């Protein structure tokens, strides 16, 4: 190693050759909602990388706030396709605990899953409160989206405040797969109705 690369070996700043391993999260892109109908991550656009560079991608959701009482969802578009309408088979279960009534429980939720559906898939189970202090946060893993042999698996784990008038903790677990062998190169997030009033979505790639 020589020149500016060699001079920066083990340096914490300046120009260096980045490590190839280590399992580290690498920041790719942050989108901040401000009354947006959707937030999209498109490979090759606005510094977004969503290709074979990483085998696993992670989206983080921080204080997603809805303009209307609605459900936070996502869909994908495959390379060469048009529209966010890939075929999804998914599961959804959640634990809940409501502030006022004290009602609580754990269970599978058929209204939050899909069987070969092309709709946007629920990330937060059911509706989120629109109270000013209410929102939802969590993490979504997307595995090997560029693979052209296998379907594309995803797993989400999130926490949000239940809809206004019935506020409470909703811990949602959604997982499934895009039933396509085409590469997934675009991911879109939106509410089931109305805008994403506020919140951050970050995309990371995990080095392998």
């Amino acid at each position, binding site marked *: 190693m020589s020149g500016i690369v060699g001079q920066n070996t083990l340096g914490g700043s300046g120009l260096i050759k980045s490590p190839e391993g280590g399992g580290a999260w690498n*920041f790719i892109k942050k989108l901040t909602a401000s009354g947006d109908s959707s937030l999209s991550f498109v490979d090759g656009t606005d510094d977004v990388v969503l290709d074979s560079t990483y085998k696993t991608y992670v989206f983080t959701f921080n*204080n997603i706030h809805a303009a209307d009482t609605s459900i936070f969802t996502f869909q994908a578009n495959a390379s060469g396709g048009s529209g966010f309408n890939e075929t999804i088979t998914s599961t959804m279960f959640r634990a809940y605990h409501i502030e006022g009534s004290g009602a609580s429980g754990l269970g599978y939720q058929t209204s939050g899953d899909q069987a070969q559906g092309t709709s946007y898939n629920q990330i937060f189970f059911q509706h989120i409160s629109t109270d000013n202090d209410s929102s939802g946060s969590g993490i979504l893993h997307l595995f090997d989206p560029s693979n052209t042999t296998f379907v594309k698996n995803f797993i989400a784990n999130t*926490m949000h405040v239940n809809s206004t008038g019935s506020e409470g903790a909703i811990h949602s677990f959604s997982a499934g797969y895009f039933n396509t062998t085409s590469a997934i190169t675009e991911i879109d997030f939106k509410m089931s109705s109305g805008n994403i009033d506020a919140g951050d979505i970050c995309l990371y790639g995990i080095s392998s």
Partner: protein
Amino acid sequence: MSGIISQNVGRPSGLVKAAAAAGGVWTLIKTLTASADSDLSFVDGTDDVTLDATYPIYVFKFINIHAGTHAADFTAGFRDGGSAYDATKTTSTFYAYHNEGDSATGLTYASHDMVQGTGFCQIGGDAMGTDNDQCCSGTMFLFNPSSTTFVKHFMVNMNTLTEADYSVNEYTAGYCNVTAAIDAVQFKFDTGNIDAGKIKLYGIKDS
């Protein structure tokens, strides 16, 4: 950013501008090691702990937490001003379990959840044993603790070897129902000391 640097944004090879602190976007902030301590506390601005707007997401890793007293539950409290760890919380909890004798398995919602409570909430342990090899380990995400607009979400996944020799995989999640910033988090058992174990605090960058 321009030229060869901008061409490599987000890519793991080639010439890139290294992060200020190398090692990806997870930054180790603090490690606390228990030695028969009544509690372990992470307080922003104290002992090199950062728990403010520097990071949008914080992660606590619990490694081999060992109880000093039999059948203790591992708990967390959040500080939202003042000195007390009494932020109001609503949580849900469920767990899967399987005993070593292979006579009991299941998945169930847990009654040790919390609704608008101000006490410490159980996040693991679940009647932990004090045998030398018994402990619990897991992870807790805390989202945007410095926000003064939103409630503060947290999600915990912990596995425990209990005093009855059960493996208990527990999921606790909820929110501190306050708009004041959370600037400190304390962990302790509901009875007795934290005999041993490490808790690591990381911050996840968003730039």
